């Protein structure tokens, strides 16, 4: 008792420290630190052959220190060093007008908008299909195999045709790109929700039967809440894939703007640092989107009385 009283003041005086130790901050920082270290090591390792070649071509004397320094500052490294990437991101976000086409945020926004549109349509479509599959035997038997087959079609191969066809019927702009996202993201939702809608226990379904509940009532009062854990897990995967889809979808539309266009342009001109910064922006976007879904999940599950 007294011991607790003694420690209490120290606890309250350094809330920042406590948050760091007990919260996520410190672990993330440490894990991040380890990753950075490994990254730097690889930077030197992967860029060294080219650098040594360069020294030999220029016939300069070099030391290990030179090598380490120079491998971290190449113009087109095999693996750019973290600070190069950070500097590039800084330069192309904060260092540039927000409306400029050279601003990474501008491209991130373009990609984000089609990601979100595609994700929303994809999730809705996925849920609808799952509902159909769970409620209609003919659909269960016939549609599911073809939904699966549809996912094995390499999207990048057909995306150009899809875009061309959509263009031909007058659809252009955001929607065709978003549809590529939809195409990729509806699948995890279908798989997850079919499982989720079927997860109620037999006795729970029996209970609804005794009330002679209609299909819709059984759905809304039993199947839907029972499937929510599956829904959120699926949505996390779907939103991440949706972003991949949006980036893929940018290519056949002429790759004019968006993170995908940045990636490709970086790749054509061998600008590794630009590729990596676009890659990081995309990954950060994904982390945020997945995080947002996670927050939604926690809020909904808390309201549904999940045992903490």
């Amino acid at each position, binding site marked *: 008792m007294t011991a607790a009283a003694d420690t209490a003041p120290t606890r309250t005086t350094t809330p920042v420290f406590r948050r760091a130790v007990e919260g996520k901050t410190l672990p993330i920082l440490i894990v991040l630190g380890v990753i950075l270290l490994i990254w730097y090591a690889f930077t030197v390792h992967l860029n060294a052959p080219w650098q040594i070649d360069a020294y030999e071509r220029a016939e300069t004397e070099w030391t290990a220190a030179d090598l380490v320094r120079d491998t971290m500052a190449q113009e087109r490294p095999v693996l750019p060093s973290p600070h190069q990437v950070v500097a590039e991101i800084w330069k192309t976000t904060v260092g540039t007008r927000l409306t400029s086409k050279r601003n990474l945020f501008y491209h991130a926004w373009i990609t984000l908008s089609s990601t979100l549109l595609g994700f929303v349509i994809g999730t809705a479509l996925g849920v609808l299909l799952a509902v159909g599959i769970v409620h209609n035997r003919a659909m269960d038997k016939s549609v599911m195999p073809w939904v699966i087959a549809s996912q094995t079609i390499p999207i990048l191969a057909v995306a150009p045709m899809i875009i061309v066809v959509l263009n031909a019927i007058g659809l252009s702009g955001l929607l065709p790109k978003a549809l590529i996202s939809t195409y990729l993201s509806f699948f995890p939702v279908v798989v997850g929700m079919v499982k989720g809608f079927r997860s109620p*226990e037999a*006795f*729970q379904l*029996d*209970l*609804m*039967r*005794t*009330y*002679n*509940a*209609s299909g819709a*009532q059984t759905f809304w*009062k*039993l199947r839907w*809440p*029972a499937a*929510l854990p599956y829904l959120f897990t699926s949505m996390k995967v779907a939103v991440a894939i949706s972003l991949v889809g949006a980036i893929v979808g940018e290519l056949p539309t002429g790759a004019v703007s968006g993170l995908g266009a940045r990636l490709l342009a970086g790749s054509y001109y061998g600008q590794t640092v630009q590729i990596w910064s676009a890659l990081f922006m995309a990954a950060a976007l994904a982390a945020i989107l997945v995080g947002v879904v996670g927050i939604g999940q926690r809020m909904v599950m808390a309201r*549904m*009385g*999940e*045992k903490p």
Partner: protein
Amino acid sequence: MNANPAIRQEASSPQTSQPVVEAKGLGLTFETNDGPVRALADVDLTINKGEFVSFIGPSGCGKTTFLRVIADLEQPTAGEILVNGLTPEEARRKRAYGYVFQAAGLFPWRTIEQNVALPLEIMGYSKAEQKERVHRTLDLVNLAGFEKKFPWQLSGGMQQRASIARALAFDADLLLMDEPFGALDEIVRDHLNEQLLDLWARTGKTIGFVTHSIPEAVYLSTRIIVMSPRPGRVTDVIVSPLPKERPLDIRESPEFLEIAQRVREGLRAGHGDD
């Protein structure tokens, strides 16, 4: 054994004409991974309107299965059964019955009051009526004050009571109850027994009741069905001569003890061949 035929008459006379459940040669066999399990065989039984029928029998003898067949949750593999003169399915569609399951089976994502309101929502009661009924039935089972709790925050017995409240919240003419009071202590059980009898007398419901307690069966029922173990058969039907009005201390009366003894013997006979 009909020590008091007059009273017996009174308990069942208004109903004889109107059968609620009629089973003829009913049988049910489950197919399992290691061969068929015969759960029910050759059950002939008629339950009339207003009767209170208890089922008693060794564990695994098919009591639950029989209630489930009445409720159209299980399809018999032999014989036939009618509920209110209809097939079980038609009867279910008309919401002919309320069912209390052996396990509480509350939805974990609903609070207690939401759980009790579930059938009311489904049957389209108004919000106000829902509220009033939830309140009343939770009171009845002594759960006032726990409306906003989630099931896992309740003790086993409290969950069981919530599930009873759920079945009582709407007005079905036929109540099927599978060991509703199994997890309750004697005092609460006595209280709920009284309440149930009162409800039954007041509303003229027909009740099918599974229990393991011989005194409970005798105290509540107009008829007690004793079943034998696998395959479940009806081995004995005991008609209770007790009056409709039953104070708790009727349980010390000689008639009561006599019937209890008969049930016990029937049960023991059933266990013999287990």
